[in-house]
């Protein structure tokens, strides 16, 4: 864990010059066609990960505890949701986030509800880390009118505008153009808020991601593109859907920094995301941040279709890097929390979850008259 972090930190700081400089194309073109490589290299280099301000001293204990809490809430929520699905209590498709908790938690630690995010089909973790509450989330998964979307969205469209969460998305690659648009709003409104687009390795091959990234770089929008590379798009491993290993390699083609971090290490994510978000807040434009991670469960649900697209050994290998286990060890080591405290917290979360499930189960289904509501916005309605 600490190892990966150090490697990232060892990266050379690059020149601060912005990627989106507006040189006349013909000049650099016909006159010195070989110049490309040099320029590209400079642009490509990730910026230093060394921290400024508060983060220079490393995150506070409060921050560490918050990140841990985020991760654990996600883990327990997802485990329980998966069980509920297996028990036939959640209709529709459920894409679970177990294994990837460090990404949502490390990124979201830098955001407030004023910042926007767009999520994916695998969206519970993002919403939870952004402040989502158990009750309206379970209610939404159960299709109840007390859900965040009144039961109309379900898992794949779960959202909360008040928390700055612009929705899970059933369309792979659906989020990034919307996040780019939200970042445009931030820039237009002149605030310091940012927008974060989460997307997968599989989604990186969608044209929508390409177009959003290019526009974000062009306008220097406060938009962070977080690729959660879990090695698979559904049942297709990365090497079968793209001829590259690192999605971050695409950053230079847009004129933005590309950064890789260890998506199984919340500290690695926290630091890399902090850099990128700080850059965006200060007008420095977008970053493509790739988090190498893994999902423990199947594409849908826990066991999914039971296909043999990956080995048990592979799964076990990744579980050794488990973000929560390792982080808990560290918290104990650092004296931030004791095992006992951790266990109590866990118990409390599980208790809250059961309570939320009860709440959701007791909640009413939407009534027939709600079917045709919310299609249009109607003033005063």
């Amino acid at each position, binding site marked *: 864990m600490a190892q990966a972090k150090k490697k990232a930190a060892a990266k050379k700081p690059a020149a601060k010059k912005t990627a989106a400089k507006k040189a006349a194309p013909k000049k650099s073109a016909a006159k010195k066609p070989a110049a490309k490589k040099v320029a590209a290299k400079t642009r490509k280099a990730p910026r230093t990960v060394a921290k400024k301000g508060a983060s220079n001293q490393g995150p506070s204990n409060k921050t560490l505890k918050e990140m841990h809490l985020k991760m654990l809430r996600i883990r327990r929520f997802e485990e329980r949701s998966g069980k509920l699905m297996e028990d036939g209590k959640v209709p529709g498709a459920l894409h679970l986030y177990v294994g990837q908790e460090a990404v949502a938690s490390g990124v979201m630690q830098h955001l407030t509800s004023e910042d926007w995010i767009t999520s994916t089909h695998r969206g519970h973790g993002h919403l939870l880390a952004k402040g989502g509450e158990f009750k309206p989330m379970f209610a939404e998964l159960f299709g109840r009118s007390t859900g965040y979307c009144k039961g109309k969205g379900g898992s794949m469209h779960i959202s909360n*505008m008040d928390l700055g969460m612009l929705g899970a998305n059933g369309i792979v690659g*659906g989020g990034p153009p919307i996040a780019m648009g939200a970042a445009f709003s931030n820039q237009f409104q002149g605030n310091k808020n940012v927008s974060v687009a989460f997307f997968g390795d599989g989604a990186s091959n969608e044209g929508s991601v390409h177009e959003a990234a290019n526009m974000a770089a062009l306008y220097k929008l406060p938009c962070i593109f977080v690729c959660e590379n879990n090695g698979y798009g559904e049942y297709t491993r990365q090497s079968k859907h793209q001829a590259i290993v690192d999605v971050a390699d695409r950053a230079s083609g847009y004129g933005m920094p590309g950064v890789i971090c260890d998506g199984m290490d919340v500290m690695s994510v926290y630091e890399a995301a902090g850099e990128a978000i700080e850059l965006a807040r200060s007008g420095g434009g977008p970053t493509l941040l790739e988090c190498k991670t893994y999902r423990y469960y199947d594409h849908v649900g826990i066991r999914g279709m039971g296909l043999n697209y990956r080995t048990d050994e592979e799964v076990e290998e990744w579980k050794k890097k488990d973000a929560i286990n390792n982080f808990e060890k560290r918290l104990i080591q650092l004296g931030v929390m004791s095992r006992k405290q951790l266990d109590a917290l866990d118990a409390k979360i599980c208790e809250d979850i059961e309570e939320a499930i009860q709440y959701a189960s007791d909640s009413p289904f939407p009534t027939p008259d709600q079917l045709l509501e919310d299609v249009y916005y109607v003033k005063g309605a």
Partner: protein
Amino acid sequence: MSEAKKPEPRVLPYVLAINEGIRTVLSEQDDAFLAGEDVAEAGSVYGYCGGLLDQFGPRRVIDTPISEKGIMGLGVGASATGCRPIIDLMFMDFIGECMDEVANQMAKMRYMFGGKATLPVTVLTMGGAGGSMAAQHSQSLEAWLAHLPGMKVVMPSDAYDAKGMIISACRDDNPVFVVLNKSSLAMSMEVPEESYEVPLGEAIVRKQGTDLTIVAFGRMVHEALDAAEQLKDVGLNVEVIDARSVQPFDTATVVTSIKKTHRALIVHEAVKFGGIGGEITAQIQEQAFDYLDAPVMRVAAPFSPVPFSPALESLYIPNAASIVAKVKETLEL
């Protein structure tokens, strides 16, 4: 602009009425911006964005890359987060490039979020054939949009409506497609300088008549009015309704008319099969079956992509002559 006495009636072509519509919106709404391919420095390839960059500056009038998914995503994301974007989709034919952003995000986000997202975004786009722009620059695809709950779709037929509907669309808190017509750009008429709305979802009777009701969309309204003029010669007095809005569609105005005339003809530029005319026909006979003395007939484009050659394109696009012929057929003359 700041004259003391009331200005003389002022005649404006469609292209400048569009311009004035956008200009009015940008003046009135600080949260509004215009974004699209070549809308800023070039003032749009049709010229209707001329002068907007100068007046409102690059913060509010924005050239985009050729990235329709990105542009439409910009409209979705920015409108959901407090801006009021006007998105320019140069040719309606390009909607295929961003149909996901239009259909799955823009049209549905409010509903999927349980009513908690509001998307005040207006999309301007140019439909229609007539200039030998061939199969990929001439289509009328409003039927696709009208099939999408959550989306409003209007087709202003003249300069007055173009300005007024753009203003109404931009004041609406829902996604609205304003489908313009490229063959109408030079068509002039009196257009007030001040800000005004033309309601979305209301048809208008352009010509009173008794013998048959023509319901026409967009530029076809003028062909219908021409046809009506010609039909006077054979003693027919047809009523012409400008549908103006495709979604919501003003069935009431149409049905009221047909209860008077007992006959109906739908005219649109889109391909007949699967065009909006089928929907209107269905609604008419659902609501006024007993009033109909003849089947509801349709004049629309035949079953082929839009041909390039002027020799074929002129046969392809419905016009006054084909409307006259169909009216006569409907009336068994």
